[in-house]
């Protein structure tokens, strides 16, 4: 545990230093934006843009130039077939490319739409673009593979030696997942089957959460409902496919008084609903927690501009330190939340697996 605390403290220190530099840049950018463009600062839009997915990896804006990493756009439409190009072709969404455009308002806001010759929207292409969230997934996955394949190598070569380095750092976490999460929740006989999934999910969520806290990266992967949905679906399918007779019996024919099952199958309905609400809750909990964490930090930052707009730059600058302090506090809190959410998702998954494989109460 000490190792985790130490490393999380390091991460905190790192983040704090990043925050100040990045927010300074953001401040400059926003001011420049306000001076040049007469458009009003919209806190809602600002916050939403920061927590939403995007077709390019926006890093920061200096003056008028937006610095961002272009990401591949992969589209398929019946009219023009497969289209693969970089998102830089859209010029930050200001222009259309070929016959595609990023819609900025309306019901298709934020989506790529297909246009006809006259520039009218004719439909939505199948969009499998590597968006910012997908790029974040890739980044995290490369990190996971790099770290754990390395650890596996050192684990293989040092069975009878004391662990060292990365293995030493992460081994207590792995043992924690095994001894405090999997074993009590699933049982000492059956837990081994589920360990790979539990460990992968735990470290995936943890790494994504912590990566999301590094503000210049600005990715919000675990705060993306599609990602948490897939994670929850994995848990759901593993639970369902490893479920034994006892589990299904408890759902369709639970040990309750007969009038709860006949003529109206009240309990079976409740139990069956539970099967689907469990993964749904998993999905929403992780999504909402991480999304809220990101939002609050951005809201605190945008407070500076709201105050500046209301009472001029003096008030804006005097609010800035308070806002920054709160942002730092929130980021530190989010480090804690990152660990807790990864733990909770893993623990609940393990509990569902345990329910699915338990023999009798």
């Amino acid at each position: 545990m000490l190792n985790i605390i130490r490393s999380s403290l390091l991460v905190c220190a790192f983040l704090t230093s990043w925050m100040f530099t990045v927010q300074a840049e953001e401040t400059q950018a926003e001011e420049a934006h306000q001076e040049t463009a007469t458009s009003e600062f919209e806190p809602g839009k600002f916050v939403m843009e920061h927590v939403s997915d995007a077709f390019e990896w926006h890093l920061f804006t200096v003056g008028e130039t937006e610095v961002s990493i272009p990401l591949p756009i992969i589209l398929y439409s019946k009219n023009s077939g497969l289209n693969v190009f970089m998102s830089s072709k859209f010029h930050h969404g200001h222009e259309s490319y070929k016959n595609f455009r990023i819609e900025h308002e309306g019901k298709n806001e934020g989506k790529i739409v297909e246009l006809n010759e006259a520039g009218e929207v004719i439909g939505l292409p199948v969009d499998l673009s590597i968006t910012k969230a997908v790029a974040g997934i890739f980044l995290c996955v490369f990190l996971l593979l790099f770290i754990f394949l390395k650890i596996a190598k050192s684990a293989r070569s040092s069975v009878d030696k004391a662990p060292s380095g990365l293995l030493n750092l992460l081994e207590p976490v792995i043992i924690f997942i095994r001894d405090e999460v999997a074993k009590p929740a699933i049982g000492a006989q059956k837990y081994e089957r589920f360990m790979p999934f539990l460990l992968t999910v735990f470290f995936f969520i943890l790494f994504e959460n912590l990566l999301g806290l590094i503000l210049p990266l600005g990715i919000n992967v675990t705060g993306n409902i599609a990602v948490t949905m897939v994670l929850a679906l994995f848990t759901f399918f593993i639970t369902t496919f490893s479920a034994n007779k006892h589990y299904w019996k408890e759902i369709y024919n639970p040990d309750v008084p007969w009038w709860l099952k006949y003529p109206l199958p009240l309990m079976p309905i409740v139990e069956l609903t539970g099967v689907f609400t469990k993964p749904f809750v998993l999905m929403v909990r992780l999504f909402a927690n991480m999304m809220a964490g990101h939002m609050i930090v951005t809201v605190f930052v945008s407070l500076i501009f709201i105050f500046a707009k209301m009472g001029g730059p003096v008030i804006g600058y005097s609010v800035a330190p308070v806002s920054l302090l709160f942002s730092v506090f929130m980021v530190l809190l989010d480090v804690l939340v990152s660990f807790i959410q990864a733990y909770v998702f893993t623990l609940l998954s393990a509990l569902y697996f345990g329910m699915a494989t338990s023999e009798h109460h």
Partner: protein
Amino acid sequence: MGFVTPDYGTIFWMVIIFGLVLFILKKFAWGPILKALKDRESSIADALSSAERARKEVAGLKSDNEKIIAEARREKDVILKEAREIKDKIIAEAKQQAAAEAQKSIESARQQIAAEKTAAINDIKKQVAELSVMIAEKVVQKELEKQKDQEALVEGLLKDLKLK
């Protein structure tokens, strides 16, 4: 982009990537890591149990040793006791023998003395007889000369005899 509506593109990539990562990590990372952890734990447990066993063995040896030592001590005591008894017996026997021997030599000395004594008495008797014969001779000679002198002589001789 949708905020609470999951985007199918992201779902598509997430399923592929996460599934792939799960597979790769399961095969190449979690398996070896968990196995290494288990091996290490079991080797530590083995080492501990064998240490425990060794300790028990040593304790057993110790108690064995003590038993052997106690046995040896008892045997020593028995041997010592026997030796003492033998010694006492020998001494007693020696004393008895010595006493018997002494008794025997005293007896023989006494017998010798008795023999000597009888011999001496016999000798004296013989001498007294001779003397008596000699005196008688002389008395007879003197009687022949003078009665009175004879008597005086006998008397004087008898006086001498008495002194002896």
